[in-house]
């Protein structure tokens, strides 16, 4: 016996991906419920660096980040002040000739695809970022990259969805995904034509067999030093870190906030469940950062914290239907690019739900591309 669903779509997870999906769903005329276990904009959305970047690990990654960046640029003027949208740009920093060759490869890659980039030699790099150590070889500036404060962006999307009739359930953990919706831990059920698992690093607990692993990261934020840094900086070793499947790695990554505070990262660890700060990882991460910015050590730091990214084996998110379940879709597995690609994800997800032609091919992100391990409906 089935009753007609209350909603067209129920989205599990109020992080930036779930929030962006909710906004896109209502924009497409769907009745939407969003269910968040803790707080809107929590999870990795709250913990991570809010960068909006293009990436070139693969054509699919580039397509999704580029598409998403365009969408962010389109919505930029509507975002409230507290989203702190700042087009500071990224500089990929080359410490040796090998990394400089990578700079040239990126320059070609991006130029061929219409992304404006600029190669910096040692001197231009020093002029662009005077606090970088001497002896670096150069870098690649990507001027259109930006930073935001993600929790407020998530709230913006949720408020937008609410304004058009979406129902928002906060502080309501989902116990399980059922055949026609979700059952909450408090016993209530929400039925929907489509269920979207956008629960980030918690998504495998709701969908068994999902190959999404927690990848822990560390961050430190400093006090205000307004002239210290102008661009987001990333070492070219970042890619080596993001690529690898080894247990733990650190890479230099730093981001300025509008107030002049600096967000220092990054680290990656698999197979760690505790959210406590790992002193040895923090050491390595900060030591690496100080290698690039020698005067960083003297700056005052206010907080250190961790977060969990949701990582997939092929570094691409899962956006689309789960073959084994008639109503279930995934929007998860965004690793370190969730903020950027939340908007592209939302579009591609809704394209598939309402059968609309997507702006970029969806195949690379389909859940069907990866085998689910013992696929079945799961209990939380």
């Amino acid at each position, binding site marked *: 016996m089935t009753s007609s669903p209350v909603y067209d779509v129920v989205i599990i997870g109020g992080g930036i991906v779930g929030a962006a999906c909710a906004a896109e769903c209502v924009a497409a005329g769907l009745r939407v419920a969003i269910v968040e276990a803790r707080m809107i904009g929590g999870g990795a959305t709250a913990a991570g660096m809010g960068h909006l970047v293009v990436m070139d690990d693969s054509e699919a990654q580039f397509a999704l980040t580029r598409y998403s960046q365009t969408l962010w640029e389109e919505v930029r003027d509507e975002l409230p002040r507290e989203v702190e949208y700042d087009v500071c740009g990224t500089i990929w920093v080359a410490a040796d000739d090998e990394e400089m060759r990578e700079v040239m490869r990126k320059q070609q890659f991006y130029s061929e695809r219409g992304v404006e980039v600029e190669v910096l030699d040692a001197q231009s790099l020093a002029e662009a970022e005077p606090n970088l150590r001497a002896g670096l070889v150069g870098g690649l500036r990507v001027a259109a990259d930006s930073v935001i404060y993600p929790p407020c962006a998530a709230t913006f999307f949720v408020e937008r969805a609410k304004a058009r009739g979406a129902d928002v359930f906060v502080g309501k953990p989902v116990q399980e995904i059922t055949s026609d919706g979700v059952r909450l831990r408090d016993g209530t059920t929400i039925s929907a034509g489509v269920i979207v698992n956008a629960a980030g690093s918690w998504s495998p607990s709701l969908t068994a067999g999902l190959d999404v692993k927690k990848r822990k990261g560390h961050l430190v934020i400093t*006090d*205000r*030093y307004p002239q210290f840094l102008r661009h987001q900086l990333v070492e070219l070793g970042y890619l080596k870190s993001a690529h690898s499947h080894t247990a733990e790695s650190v890479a230099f990554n730093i981001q300025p906030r509008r*107030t002049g505070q600096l967000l220092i990262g990054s680290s990656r660890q698999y197979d760690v469940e505790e959210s406590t700060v790992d002193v040895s990882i923090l050491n390595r991460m900060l030591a690496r950062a100080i290698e690039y910015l020698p005067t960083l050590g*003297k700056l*005052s730091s206010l907080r250190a914290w961790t977060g969990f990214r949701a990582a997939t084996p092929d570094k691409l998110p899962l956006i689309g239907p789960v073959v084994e379940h008639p109503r279930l879709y995934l929007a998860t597995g965004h690793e370190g690019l969730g903020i950027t690609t939340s908007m592209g994800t939302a579009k591609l997800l809704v394209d598939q739900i309402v059968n609309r032609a997507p702006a970029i091919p969806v195949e690379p992100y389909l859940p069907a591309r990866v085998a689910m391990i013992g696929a079945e409906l799961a209990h939380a």
Partner: protein
Amino acid sequence: MPETVRLIVNDVEVTMPAGSMVSAAIMATGVSVFRRSVTGEPRGPLCGMGICFECRVTIDGEAHCRSCQTECRNGMDVRTDG
């Protein structure tokens, strides 16, 4: 131990009793605005005991020093950000 200490606050020489804190030296020059908040509001000391961070100034080139917790020393260079 010397009875007084001479330091420079915003390029002005100030003489203070030994053991005074930099916050007192700043206020002795008639300055009430120690720094600006994130939205540009003028701010000065609030708690006097090192926990509010509103008394921060640059001392000998180092930013964000809590002036209420820093003893005046001979030759110290203090800059407010009013």
